[in-house]
């Protein structure tokens, strides 16, 4: 016999049957029937946040660290609009997420009713797809379809807008969750074109100066092991985008570091001088290409992506391959074996290329700017803070960040060896992402060490969630790179606006962060010198504070800049390397 359930009950039941563990949300009028359905069950845990934006970032952190979709529930109007920034963040980084928003009842839609917003319209440019529920009986089907769309192909956020009348507890329907979803208009690519794969493998083997350029698509597509096999087999250099960090081990000698605006000297130079670039799950973002007309002038571009629209969008691909990174790389590995047919790869050209890369690495590698700074200020440096955290966590923590200088320092100095270990807002660059996303990661991995590397500017954008951390006893470790300014803005103003710090400083009005943290029942330390920092970090990660949220307010040199940095409008190898020369 089929069960009779209300729309609200069907929603929760369907989510549970789709494997959902957590809903991150905030109640309100239009969502109250749904909240009542949540109250009456135990299968799914609802996490009460303090602001809807934070709910979306938590779901996002959950999704990025697990690969499973993050689920958000908000009410209509302001609840829905507050979620938009988090939805856009997930959209830009292709993160699977389903956002359920309450809506005013059908009979008042369009009348400017209390807390009414056209959520479908407002969210349209930043979702992969969206649904306005017309019939309650369709809710299970819509949930299944929404999760399928959010997680397949190029993943992304999906919105389900649910008018309150369709969740009425007094109206019951036959609950029917379909076994599978088949859409005639949506068939994501899986395998790559065989002829293209053959062409790509031949180009790889003929190349004398290759670079494998890897982005977030390899994280989302769980293709890290295939990537590593291919790179190791060929002994070719690998560089990661900000979003791709961890897909190739940060400690591997074949790793050139991150490329792009704040990428390493060796990665950016290798890109510029390459004769072949194998782009895997990367989208030639403007923070990677600098001036597209000067981008990698001698390179044949092989581009693998699950989304055909990413291929030849910014940089024309010579050998485009549409397909899932995992499937295509597996095809390439197989084809490589066939192509070689037992013969060894000629290592001579690659040895010469490595010699060149090593000389770049030795001359102006990552620590070049740091060494200059160390001999300069005598103050605590952001790079040192990241190094201390890296050592204390043995490189094994989940690390989330906010947006700005601290994000780039973390990306440069924490060597991520695993995919899904590094979690940050790359595409949209959302300040306020760090703390809530760390919370989502901690919910997904309750026994793992989760570190949020933030700056005081970003942190203050969502610090209300310290209260949520108290409620759910989340033992996140927060490291605040406090330079008493909007550091990245200030750096640009130093470099491009004659040092005029227009609205980027607020030193006199900052809170006492340790007192602030204590007021939420958490533990706070302050560090102004390297020894103080080392002591605080040791304590923070000790057994004594295993179950505490610990916040370290690291007062760093306020004048330190992040380098290397692209020269605006230049080629990728045109960089400023430090502020002293």
């Amino acid at each position, binding site marked *: 016999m089929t069960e009779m359930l209300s729309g609200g009950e069907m929603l929760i039941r369907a989510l549970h049957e789709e494997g959902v563990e957590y809903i991150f949300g905030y109640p309100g009028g239009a969502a109250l029937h749904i909240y009542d359905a949540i109250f009456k069950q135990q299968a799914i845990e609802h996490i009460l946040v303090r602001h809807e934006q934070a709910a979306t970032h938590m779901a996002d952190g959950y999704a990025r660290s697990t690969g499973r979709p993050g689920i958000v529930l908000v009410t209509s109007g302001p609840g829905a609009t507050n979620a938009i920034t988090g939805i856009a963040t997930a959209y830009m980084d292709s993160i699977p997420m389903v956002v359920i928003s309450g809506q005013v009842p059908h009979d008042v839609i369009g009348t400017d009713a209390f807390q009414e917003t056209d959520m479908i319209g407002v969210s*349209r440019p930043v979702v992969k797809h969206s649904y306005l529920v017309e019939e309650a009986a369709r809710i299970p089907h819509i949930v299944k379809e929404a999760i399928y769309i959010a997680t397949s192909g190029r993943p992304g956020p999906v919105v389900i807008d649910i008018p309150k009348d369709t969740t009425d507890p007094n109206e019951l329907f036959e609950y029917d969750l379909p076994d599978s979803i088949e859409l005639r*208009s949506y068939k994501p690519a899986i395998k790559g074109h065989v002829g293209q794969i053959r062409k790509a493998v031949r180009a790889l083997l003929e190349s004398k100066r290759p670079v494998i350029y890897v982005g977030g698509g390899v994280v989302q597509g769980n293709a890290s092991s295939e990537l590593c096999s291919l790179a190791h087999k060929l002994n070719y250099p690998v560089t990661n985008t900000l979003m791709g960090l961890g897909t190739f081990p940060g400690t591997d000698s074949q790793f050139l570091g991150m490329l792009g605006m704040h990428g390493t000297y060796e990665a950016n130079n290798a890109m510029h001088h390459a004769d072949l670039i194998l782009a895997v799950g990367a989208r030639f973002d403007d923070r990677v290409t600098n001036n597209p007309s000067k981008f990698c002038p001698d390179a044949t571009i092989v581009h693998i992506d699950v989304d*055909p629209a990413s291929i*030849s969008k910014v940089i024309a691909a010579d050998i485009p391959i549409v397909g899932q990174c995992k499937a295509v790389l597996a095809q390439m590995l197989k084809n490589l074996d066939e192509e070689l047919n037992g013969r060894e790869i000629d290592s001579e050209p690659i040895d010469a290329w490595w010699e060149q890369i090593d000389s770049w690495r030795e001359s102006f590698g990552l620590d070049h700017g740091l060494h200059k700074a160390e001999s300069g200020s005598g103050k605590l440096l952001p790079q040192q803070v990241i190094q201390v955290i890296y050592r204390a966590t043995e490189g094994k923590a989940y690390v989330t960040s906010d947006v700005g200088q601290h994000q780039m320092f973390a990306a440069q100095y924490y060597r991520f060896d695993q995919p899904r270990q590094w979690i940050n807002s790359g595409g949209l660059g959302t300040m306020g992402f760090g703390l809530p996303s760390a919370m989502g990661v901690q919910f997904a991995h309750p026994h793992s060490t989760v570190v949020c590397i933030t700056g005081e500017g970003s942190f203050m954008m969502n610090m209300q969630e310290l209260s949520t951390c108290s409620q759910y006893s989340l033992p996140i470790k927060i490291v605040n790179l406090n330079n008493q300014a909007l550091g990245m803005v200030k750096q640009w103003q130093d470099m491009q606006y004659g040092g005029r710090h227009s609205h980027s400083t607020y030193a006199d009005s900052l809170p006492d962060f340790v007192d602030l943290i204590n007021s939420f029942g958490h533990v706070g330390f302050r560090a102004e010198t390297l020894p103080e920092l080392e002591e605080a970090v040791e304590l923070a990660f000790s057994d004594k504070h295993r179950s505490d949220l610990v916040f370290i307010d690291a007062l760093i040199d306020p004048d330190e800049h992040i380098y290397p940095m692209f020269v605006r409008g230049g080629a990728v190898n045109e960089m400023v390397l430090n502020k002293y020369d």
Partner: protein
Amino acid sequence: MRHLLSVLLENEAGALSRVIGLFAQRDFNIETLTAAPTEDETLSRLTLVTTGDDRTIEQITKHLNRLIEVVKVIDLTDNEHIERELMLVKVRAEADARTEIKRTCDIFRGQIVDVTVNTYTVQLIGPTDKLLAFIEAIGTSRILEVVRSGVSGISRGTKVLSV
């Protein structure tokens, strides 16, 4: 370059707004857009006239395909095709001008579909350049109102756009 794109779209609420939103969001150009259900009422057929270089048109096609409700997209201008647009024109037609307007209508194979003491309403069907030529021939000073449907297109021969 001018291109004529034909799109099969799920005939669902909100689907058309996604297509239009995409053009605005990515700064693609739409000259005309027509949309109506097909013989299969679950599908709408759109004809879009847009302009852009090959790279832009490729991006437009790819982004249209990326929309969940878009079933198929073809560029009609890649092959032989037929395009037609319907125009209704209300013109001032006083006694002494009526014969001349009627003659111009006949030359363009237009039909006068409504008549008053001092106006004619002319219906004209054809490719866009023919409609524009008619406006020029009649003279803008005489025209009171122009309504154009936008272009509809279909491939020549046995080639079909279907599910």
